């Protein structure tokens, strides 16, 4: 047995436990991004730092083994400022946007990229549900708005903005009386939340977003029917993050009331890899290199997965050099998406499980 102190409370535990294990058991909250109970600890994010008061040094609690006589500090300002720094460092290379520009400027906070995803998937029922929820919670109607969304649309930099306003109006016209009663949803306002920004985008980086709209044949301005709605919504570049409401990095940034660091540093150009077989999307600029997906893939011999490439600052997660991104993770896409603490891995057809509920 090992005796130690954590935040001045005495503990007696069996050997081989980490400080984080003990803290979780005792209800002491320590934030972490790279730790997962199903895998051996790795200590990459360094958000879980604690202080060893006797040795006067700091340790990642996820891999620091409890040792006899330790006196661990989990909650002083000193510890918190170190944790805060690690999050700020991670965010300083997080060249991604939590929310799409169109959604940010929308007075009603409409989830425009999601609507476009629903329309392009021809899921009109859900699209109508979303429209009802949006109108109900904001009280705003698109026809009364000058259309800030289209002004902010990033597609404008390529050719013309997506016809967002007409798409939204088209969907709202499909709302029938009986649906209104059924759709008692409220959209969560996310404007108060932490929002990461992308910084400067190079011209060739912009091309990466266009990968999402490969099927666009022609652009439509007036939306008259479901076919034209589906066609025009295909041209949305999905600048938002599909994990906006399911991102541990964002949650922790909120918890520490962090503002997005200015002047993002670039370790490699933004890339959007799309697996045409499974719809898995990997965006390197959102990745925090915690290695969880790599560890998940390690134990599966049967299908090629993800691995680290390069060393140090320029290291990235990638498919193996010998494989094509389209051929990896045939069955494990959902597993790697679920384990990813950010939105670096997502599914093309992703919908939030309970939007607005």
């Amino acid at each position: 047995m090992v005796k130690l102190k954590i935040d001045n409370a005495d503990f007696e535990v069996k050997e081989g436990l980490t400080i984080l294990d003990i803290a979780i058991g005792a209800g002491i909250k320590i934030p972490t991004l790279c730790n997962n109970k199903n895998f051996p600890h790795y200590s990459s994010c360094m958000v879980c730092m604690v202080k060893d008061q006797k040795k006067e040094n700091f340790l990642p609690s996820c891999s620091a083994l409890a040792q006899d006589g330790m006196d661990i500090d989990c909650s002083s300002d000193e510890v918190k400022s170190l944790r805060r720094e690690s999050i700020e460092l991670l965010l300083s290379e997080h060249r991604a946007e939590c929310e799409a520009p169109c959604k940010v400027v929308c007075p009603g906070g409409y989830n425009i990229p999601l609507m476009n995803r629903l329309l392009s998937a021809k899921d009109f029922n859900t699209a109508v549900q979303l429209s009802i929820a949006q109108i109900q919670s904001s009280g705003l109607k698109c026809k009364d708005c000058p259309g800030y969304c289209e002004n902010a649309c990033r597609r404008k930099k390529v050719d013309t903005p997506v016809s967002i306003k007409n798409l939204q109006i088209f969907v709202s016209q499909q709302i029938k009386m009986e649906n209104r009663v059924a759709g008692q949803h409220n959209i969560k306002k996310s404007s108060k939340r932490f929002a990461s920004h992308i910084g400067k985008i190079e011209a060739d980086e912009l091309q990466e977003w266009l990968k999402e709209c490969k099927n666009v044949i022609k652009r439509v301005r007036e939306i008259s029917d479901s076919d034209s709605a589906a066609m025009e919504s295909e041209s949305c570049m999905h600048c938002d993050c599909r994990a906006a409401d399911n991102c541990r990095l964002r949650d922790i940034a909120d918890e520490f009331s962090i503002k997005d660091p200015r002047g993002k540093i670039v370790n490699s150009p933004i890339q959007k890899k799309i697996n045409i077989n499974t719809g898995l999307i990997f965006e390197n600029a959102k990745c925090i290199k915690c290695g969880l997906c790599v560890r998940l893939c390690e134990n599966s011999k049967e299908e090629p997965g993800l691995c680290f490439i390069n060393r140090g600052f320029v290291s990235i997660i990638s498919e193996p050099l010998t494989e094509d991104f389209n051929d990896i993770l045939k069955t494990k896409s959902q597993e790697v998406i679920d384990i990813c603490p950010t939105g670096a891995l997502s599914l093309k057809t992703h919908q939030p499980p309970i939007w607005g509920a």
Partner: protein
Amino acid sequence: MDITSVVDEVVELTGRDPEKVVLILQEVQKRLNWLPSEALKHICEVTDITPEQISGVSTFYSQFRHLPVGKHTIKICAGTACHVKGSPLISDAFKRVLKIDNVRNASPDNLFSIEEVACLGCCTLAPIVQIDGKTYGHVKPTQADEIIHDFLISGNQPVNTPESVINEDIDAEIRIGIGSCCVAGGSKEILSEINNVKEKYNLNIRLKPVGCVGVCNQTPLMEIVTKENIHSRYTKVDKQQVEEILLKHVRPRSLNKRIKGSINDLVDTFLSEEKLSGQVNIPVELREKYLNNFLNHQVHISTKNSGVLSPESYEEYCLSGGFEALLKCIKESDQKSIIKIIADSGLRGRGGAGFPTGKKWGISFLSTGNPKYVICNGDEGDPGAFMDRMLLESFPYRVIEGMIIAGFATGASEGIFYIRAEYPLAVTRVRTAIKRCYENGVLGNNIYDSTFSFNVKIFEGAGAFVCGEETALISSLEGKRGTPHLRPPYPAVSGFRGQPTLVNNVETLSIVPWIITYGQEALCSMGTEKSKGTKVFALAGKISKGGLIEVPMGITIREIVENIGDGVINGNTFKAVQIGGPSGGCIPASKADTLVDYEELTKLGAMMGSGGMVVLDNTDCMVDMAKYFLTFTHKQSCGKCTFCRIGTKHMLNIITALTEGKATLEDINDLEKLCKYVRDGSLCGLGKTSPNPVLTGLKYFREEYEEHTRGICRANKCRDLIKYNVNDSCTGCTKCSQECPVKAIPFKPYEKHEIDQLICTKCDNCRIICPEKAIEIINING
């Protein structure tokens, strides 16, 4: 031969084990010169290596190339000593002369590629350029053309080194250094020339290749010992002079007298930076006198018999008392007593952190597991340090003996030499030595008829500084990316393959036989209260006499610089000493009376490190030094933890802005804060110590940092803050105009020349070539 059969051939040799991935990649690259993805794919097909593993590993280590390169690789050393002596300019010069395409990294004719390497370990000959196996020292940017020409003509012809034979009736013994520094200085050519002369005149001499002599910046070094036991040393020997020198000694001795008169004048220049015109013949009594300073302040334990022992000769090592310590351990002692002797001697790890060796052995001894391992950490990657290379090259048997004793004491049965790939000669020597040890029964089963068996193999590193950290080293051995993890568990408890593994530095092991032979008190009586024995340093930089030195702990830095090193070169002012490489710091001249001691150095913000000691003078910029080291650690970071991966990038950005005159005082404060976070938050020693060069810089040279915010670099080093200017001493000889590679100096015979600042690339050629010293570097804002 096609790619798949190359891979098949390699796998036939190495086996299919995933642990062998580094070796397989090395062997494939040796044959194909790069790693085509077809080869990687086929490796996965015929071995148990997965695509993920091979991708992760082959991109982690800098040795591996995924693009084809030129036929010959020009390695430009970017070590500390080379950096302070201008290696960035050399690199530029080669790129310019060869018209290297930056994307392909090859010359248009595909003959050459350029690679900047962390450190070739020839610091005393800085700056160094190595083309394939051939090394050029003291290179100037203006010589790029000449060197390429020389290489293409002479190529890289290997010279066989003769085995030395003992007890032979001869007239004289010719000792010639074959350490890397001497080889770089051209000792192999000298060796073959001596052979030629020997045959031509049928001389009765013995040629004896010896290990490092320690006087590394005066290579090649040749020592002649006649049968009357008169020693004569020649420094910087040239091929043409060999015949003359030999005939002087092996013919009637009266010739010696003839030159004796001139010796006294030459005494002072021996071992000095100045180029010696004539060769110096030094009789034994005089030699003692002036080697006095360089050699006699030293104490030789790790480097015992330096310049005398033939590195590859098992017999000579035995004659000088080798393997007696091992015999004593096995026959007369037991595990616990040996560990106690090591613990009582006060020996601490020489790799840098100074963990008590006896304690480490004790932990490993008490850990249960079978088999147990001993690893000799020879992944010396500090730019500016080459002690481990020298010890492995010159005293391979001593290190092996230390390792076998460590194995016996801790109950291990297998030893692994982890040697970095940049040290091919060390690998060859150790390999030969291991072979000889097996032949003579000191390795293998039932050593000295005891029940103790010990086997040793070599693992060549693939170019990752972080693998010097013991947990990363073990990951690397296991065929993984070399990333460290938090200790405990310590390797001594759970290391290689999860078994108890003792990891000791080369130098630490080389001291072990001495302690066993002479007793723990002998070591304990040397040094300070907490640091015992000696420490080997690689003394280089702006120093008159550089080389590999072994000094007792507790000597002051000033004694090393002024007595052993004979002060700084060119009459410049001694400014600071960089100790401990990228993990250490710059100790200012004002603190030069600090003792060499683990705790004392740490107190100053530096650290013992592995033993690189680079002397800096007033022409060195402290901000530039910090930038140099940060660039290194940032590049070598494994990328696992946030603070080291991203934090060092932010630090580097601020430092770079400083050297460009674009930073503010506020940035300096931010930098200082960031340094503290990176120090506290990083996972392993590499990250934790990476801010040291900056923190010591800010501690002792803050005003220099602040000057940079105003655009002033007092050392005239930071390229963006200086310009080249022609002063009134110009005679209009036009040499500068002819030498300028970018035509920034108009051709104006007999007139004062001018430099077009808009065209000038600050390559330094004009300043080197000017016979009148008319070209000066001035501050852009001064």
